[in-house]
């Protein structure tokens, strides 16, 4: 569950990125965030990840009141979410299995759990045959699926994806988006920032449009009003 109450964000350089945002996203929802470049979409996600703090207002994520979040609690907040990056962020010197296992190791999972969970998640994204491959041997779409598996492996209640299909071709993009919808169907809240209008139209999911830092429209059944 995500809640924005009267959130303003002004960066140190004086740039106003978000302007009085009030939003509620329930557990289990699938939400597209759309808007022109520079509208404030990534800023919106960064506030959720507690990578930036609001200048004014309150953000609540998975029961963490972020203005009250202590430094040492930040890792606990992050463990409730899985983050997918536009540029995949895979470690080139690790194979697919290790890239995914890495996310479990660094939160202290036991080897036994890792060897059970990683193959399961890789199968979920259809990469069970590529476990020993290295990132450079994979297509963009496959790399993004590894990154998705990594985001999923710690079983987060929320997936955040900032333009996950920005670097891959349209057919692959469709597959990635279908995967995200499938993950959502299994109970995970999913937040996707995208520029791809075709994808937004295809899936008919709640769509929040941001313009100049303000919520311009919020349509539960998808699409952006003319």
């Amino acid at each position, binding site marked *: 569950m995500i809640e924005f109450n009267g959130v303003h964000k002004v960066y140190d350089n004086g740039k106003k990125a978000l302007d009085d945002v009030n939003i509620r996203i329930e557990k289990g929802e699938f939400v597209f965030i759309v808007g022109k470049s520079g509208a404030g979409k990534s800023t919106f996600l960064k506030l959720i*990840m507690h*990578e930036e703090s609001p200048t004014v207002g309150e953000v609540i994520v998975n029961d963490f009141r972020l203005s009250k979040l202590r430094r040492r609690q930040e890792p606990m907040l992050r463990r409730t979410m899985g983050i997918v990056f536009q540029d995949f962020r895979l470690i080139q010197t690790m194979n697919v299995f290790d890239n995914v296992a890495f996310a479990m190791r660094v*939160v202290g999972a036991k080897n036994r759990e890792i060897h059970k969970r990683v193959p399961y998640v890789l199968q979920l994204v259809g990469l069970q045959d590529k476990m020993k491959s290295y990132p450079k041997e994979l297509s963009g779409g496959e790399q993004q699926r590894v990154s998705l598996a990594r985001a999923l492996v710690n079983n987060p209640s929320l997936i955040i994806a900032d333009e996950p299909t920005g670097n891959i071709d349209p057919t692959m993009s469709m597959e990635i988006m279908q995967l995200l919808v499938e993950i959502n169907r299994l109970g995970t809240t999913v937040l996707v920032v995208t520029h791809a209008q075709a994808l937004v139209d295809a899936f008919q999911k709640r769509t929040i449009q941001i313009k100049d830092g303000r919520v311009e429209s919020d349509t539960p059944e998808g699409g952006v009003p003319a």
Partner: protein
Amino acid sequence: MRNFGYLLREGFRSVWKNRLMAAASIIVLTACILITGLAALVFINVNYVFEQVAHQNVVVVWLQRDVTDADIEAVGDELNAMSNVSGVEFLSKEEILDRYAKEMGSEELYEALKEDNPMQDSYIVTFYDLSLFEQTLDDIRDLPQTESIEAQTKLADQLSQLRNILMIAGAVVVVLLVLVSLFIISNTIKLTVYSRRLEIGIMKAVGATNFFIRTPFVVEGAVIGLLSALVAYLVTWLAYDRVMMLFGGEVIGMGLLSFQSMWWIVLLAYLAGGVLTGMVGSAISMGRYLKDEGGDPTL
């Protein structure tokens, strides 16, 4: 700590992956440990020689010719009361004359001079702390019954000065070297942090604690420190034995400490110094990095 094995492995792996930088900092750190260690060993030996000289340094206090028995006793009490005096031994003029006569091999001499003894009563005095030598001598000189003092002041003086110079110079050098070491280590770690910033970003993104992120780098620093300490130890050992051979194990007739008698102290001190410097150095650069980046998972 079920993940400690993993964190240790990561630390070692990182040293190996960045072995060129690691080698460079091991060389610098080894040099720093070596200089510090050798300076300390020289100091310890000077001190050791100093102590020996101190114990052998006997001062003869000659009393006035006309002293009474009461005077003699009074001087003895005064000497014993001085805090820097470790030993006081009275030698009467009769004893001295007796010894002298025996040395000359003529009993007659003793008999002839007994009535009008040309010798003087004296006290043989030894000191605790040679650095207070002059001061104590002045105190003795101030006693009204003393006539003169016979002492080898020069050697004690020089040794005392040498010790002070070594102590000050040593402290300055050690502080400088520690700073240099910390600087070198933290820069090496900064480079490996930089080369692994993607990994660190991912770790932050999936919720690794700062402790977990920091530990492999601290281990890396510790490994660099450990290796440096071992290399420095071997070089110290060889150099020390070589120098000992050169000196024949002594200077100015005083024995020097053998490496065998203190090898484990040297080893422990080196290991502690190296590992600690390595860990602190990397903690410094890690702390700065985690603070600057503020836990930014997207960098």
